[in-house]
C-alpha cells in the first residue's frame, strides 16, 4: 500500500463516516419533516402566492366546512366594495374565480375552493376572518409541495407562520373541525 492509497482510504472514511452518522441521526428523527402553515399565526400577507418556487404556489386555500356559517353574504366570497350581490367580476373577492358557490337550502350556500384555480393569495381567508367565522385558511398542500429545505415562503413569511411538522402528523387545521354525526 502506497502513501497515496493510505490517504485515499483515509479520505474515503472522512466522507463516509459523517454521512453514516447523519443517516443515523436522520433515522432517529423518524419520517422527516414537512412544511405547514400555522393558521393561527398566518396574517394573509399574500407572499405564499408570489414566493413559492413552483409556477403555481403549493399553498392553497382550504375550506373547513365544519366551522362555516354557509352565509348568504359571504365576506370571503364578496368584495368589501362590491356594487351588487352578484357574480360579476367587480363584486368578487377571489381574483381567479376559484370559489364555487352552490345553493344548499334556503338561505344557505356552500362555498367550495376550486383547487385548480386557487393561487393561494389568501384574500378570501382575510375576508372571511374580517367578518365571518374564519373557516377558510391557507395550507401547504403535501401533494404539490416540493418540500425544499430552504422554503422561500418560509423565509419571506413576516409572521413566522411556516412550521415544520413531522410528515406522519396530520395537517394543522385552524381549529379542530367539529365531528358531526
Amino acid at each position: 500500500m502506497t502513501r497515496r492509497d493510505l490517504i485515499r482510504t483515509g479520505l474515503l472514511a472522512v466522507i463516509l463516516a459523517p454521512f453514516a452518522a447523519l443517516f443515523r441521526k436522520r433515522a432517529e428523527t423518524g419520517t422527516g419533516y414537512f412544511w405547514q402553515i400555522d393558521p393561527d399565526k398566518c396574517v394573509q400577507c399574500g407572499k405564499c402566492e408570489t414566493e413559492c418556487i413552483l409556477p403555481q404556489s403549493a399553498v392553497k386555500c382550504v375550506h373547513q366546512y365544519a366551522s362555516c356559517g354557509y352565509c348568504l353574504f359571504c365576506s370571503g366570497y364578496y368584495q368589501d366594495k362590491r356594487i351588487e350581490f352578484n357574480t360579476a367580476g367587480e363584486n368578487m373577492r377571489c381574483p381567479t374565480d376559484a370559489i364555487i358557490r352552490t345553493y344548499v337550502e334556503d338561505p344557505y350556500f356552500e362555498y367550495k375552493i376550486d383547487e385548480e384555480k386557487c393561487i393561494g393569495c389568501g384574500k378570501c381567508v382575510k375576508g372571511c376572518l374580517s367578518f365571518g367565522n374564519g373557516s377558510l385558511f391557507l395550507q401547504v398542500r403535501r401533494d404539490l409541495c416540493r418540500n425544499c429545505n430552504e422554503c422561500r415562503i418560509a423565509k419571506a413569511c413576516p409572521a413566522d407562520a411556516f412550521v415544520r411538522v413531522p410528515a406522519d402528523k396530520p395537517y394543522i387545521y385552524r381549529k379542530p373541525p367539529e365531528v358531526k354525526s
Partner: protein
Amino acid sequence: MTQLPVLLAAQARFPAPEFESYSLPQMSLEELAADSVLWRVLVLCIFLAAGSVSFYKWRSRKAMLAYSLAGLAVFGFLFASCPCPVGMFQNVAQGIADGSYIQPGVLLLFAIPLAASLFVGRIFCGGACPLGAIQELLHWKSVFVPRPLDRILRMVPVLLLLIFTVCAMYGIGFPLCYLEPYLPVFLLDFATPFAILSAVFLIVGLFISRPFCRYVCPYGVLLRFFSLFSMLKPRITAAECVNCRLCEQGCPNGAVLPPENAGNAVQRRTGSRRLSMLVACIPFALFAGGLFGYFCAPVLSSFHRDVRLLHELDAGIRSEAVEAFESTETTESELRARVVKLENGILLASTAAGVLFGAAVMAELIAEARRRKEEEIYTIDPSLCFCCGRCYAACPLERKEKHHEK
C-alpha cells in the same frame, strides 16, 4: 394567540346551520407526494460509471460530449437541475446543524460524487453535473485566463463555500441558490431578474471555458481537493510523448502541466527560500483570515430574519414582520436572548471559516511555489481536469494510435 378570542367571538356570529338533507363535504387535504430522489441517485451512479468508462477506457472526446449531452437532458431538464452543486452542500450543512433537515436522498447525491472523485477524478463535473454539462456544450472558442488572475479567481469558490456553509448552518438562508446562473435555463423561466446573470455566464462561457465551475462552484472546491488523490489519473497518451504542446493548447481549463525540469541551482535556491518564507507566513495568514471572518460576522448575521426583526423593533419601524411579531406570544426579551445566542454562534463560525480561508490561500500559494516531481512529459492535474477529453483529441500520437486500432 390574541387572534383566538376574536375568532371565537366570530364563530358565535354565524353558527353552523342545521341542514335537513346535506352532509358536510370532506376537506380536500391529501397525502404526501412520493419522494423521487432515490431514483435519481441510481441514475447518477449509472452516469458516473458510463462517464468513467468513456473517459478512461475509450478515451474518446466524442463519448464525453455524448455524456455531457445526456447529462444535460436528464439531470438538467428532466430532473430540473437536480444534483445541484450549489444547493446540495447548503442542504447538507443545514442538516449537520439541525438533524431534522437531513434528507437521505440529498445526502447520497452529495456524497456519491465526492466518493467517486477519490477513484475516477472529476467525472461528475464532466457531464453528470447539469451545470458542468451546459457549460461544456456551450463553449465555442477558448480564451485563456492569465495565470495570476486565474489563481486569484480560483480562491472565490473557497470563500463562497465557507460563507454559505455558515449561512446555511445558522438559518440565514441559501442566498447562493438565487444567484445560480443556469437555473433559469433549466426551469425555462426567464422572467426573473436573475436571468440576466445567466445570460452573462452563458456569453462568458462561450469564450472562457467553464467560468462557473472554475471560479464560482463551491462544491467544486471539495471535488477538487478529493480528486487530488484520485486512483485513476487521466494520462494524455499511452505512447511516448513527443512534447508537441498541442494538448496544453487544447486544454481550456489549464489542467495540462508542462514537463518539469530540475532547473539550475540558483533557481532552486530562490525557490526554496520562497517556500520557507511562505511557511513562515502561515500563522499570520491564519490570524488575518480569522480577523476577516470576525469582522464579517455582523454583516452575515444582519441577514438573519430574527436579527432584522429585532433591529426593526429597536428602530421603531412598523414593518409587517414587527406587526406579526407583536401578535404572537413571544416577548421581546425572548427574541433578544435568541438573537444574542445566534450572533455568538455566527461570530464563532465566521471566525473559524476565516481561519480556514487563510489556510486555503496559503495552501494554494505553497502548492504554487513547491517544486513538482520531475516529469519529462505533459501531465494532467487531476484536480483541475474536468474530464472533457479535449486533450485526447488534440494529441497527434493518440490519434495515430486510434487510427491503427481501426
